[in-house]
């Protein structure tokens, strides 16, 4: 397969700049796969697992939401946080999951709090899944 350039930027600088054969991620409107020479595309990414295939091997990451921008020559992922399985702290993710679940059970009236707990829960679940699948 023809490789294309992939760049992942976070607030802490450029996370990765590499060439991949295929990129799989979940946008807010569903799972998509990107190959070389894709039409220009802009879309928001859900809190989800993202993976790409490079030299026939699959690399997985936990993505805490973000944005993807596909261009002829380069695909860019703008993410607030991204972690590879090696970087994920399983214990911390499990603690975060327990905390978020507790907050959801405690039924506060503030919908902002519920929303935040939901986001935290989804991030934690994604991390745990990416770590365990590895």
């Amino acid at each position, binding site marked *: 397969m023809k490789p294309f350039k992939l760049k992942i*930027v*976070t*607030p*802490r*600088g*450029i996370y990765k700049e590499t060439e991949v054969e295929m990129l799989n991620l979940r*946008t*807010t*409107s569903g799972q*998509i796969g990107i190959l070389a020479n894709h*039409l*220009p*595309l*802009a*879309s*928001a990414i859900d809190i989800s697992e993202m993976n790409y295939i490079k030299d026939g091997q699959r690399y997985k990451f936990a993505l805490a939401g*973000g*944005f993807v*921008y596909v*261009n*002829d020559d380069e695909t*860019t992922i*703008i993410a*607030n946080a991204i972690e590879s399985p090696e970087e994920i702290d399983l214990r911390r993710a499990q603690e975060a999951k327990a905390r978020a679940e507790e907050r959801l059970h405690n039924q506060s009236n503030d919908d*902002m709090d519920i929303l*935040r707990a939901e986001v935290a829960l989804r991030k934690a679940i994604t991390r745990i899944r990416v770590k365990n699948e590895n």
Partner: protein
Amino acid sequence: MASNMQSIKRRIKSVESTKKITKAMQLVATSKLRKTRNQLEELKPYYSKVQETVAEILASNQGMIDNPYLKANPKGKNVYIVITSSLGLCGGYNANVLKTVDQTIQEGDLIYMIGSKGAGHLNHHQIEYNHDYLNLNSTLDFREVVRLVGELTKMYRNQEISKIKIIYTEFVNNLTFTPRVIDLLPVDVKEFDNIEVTQKFTIFEPSPSEVLNHLIPMYLQSIIYGYLVESVTSENASRRTSMENATDNAQDLIEDLLLKYNQARQTAITNEISEIVAGANAQ
């Protein structure tokens, strides 16, 4: 005479210990300055990429997007995010920001204060403010910025607030910092005019407006964080400069006092000699 010499000596000692402190603070500020400048550099690719993408979307859908973030709300309060420092001894840094605050903020505006020096100023003038994010300037936690943006954009979409502005200190170079007031929301479309875009046919999933709904909060997070880091950089640079001046002044003072001390010592010796000589002559 001897008592004079004693007091000068005591003063030299006290100035010397002050100098040691200011010197240490200067060194600390220098290393912190280096750290925050690096952070600012690291943020750049993220920030410019987000900005580019927003520009791209706006350019390829000129005037076609009906998005709440692009329109000013007629009703509601103005929100100001103000960035000051929590520590003193940083020259005119806080005074300059607070002067701008006094000039721009009107009664009834909502203020999100960052930094306890600014909070103290508002307390003194009995102006109410939000202090949930007071420590953001020392933690520099991106997650907190995400929370702040979430809170503000929600109020904005509910049309509770009409405008969001930020007052921060621009880092021009190591010696020059200027406080500035910047409009965050509504997003000024003109600001993106001079960014180069490719103007290719692009698919927006699911729609340009929906994409903007996601991207604009991210854009706000990145610029607020950027302004925050920039302000802290200015603070550290300002502290370094003022501490450098203080150290230099202390050095000048020590040299001055040393001269006075030596003069006093010489006078004392001369006096003693003339007394001995006078005594010998008298015999």
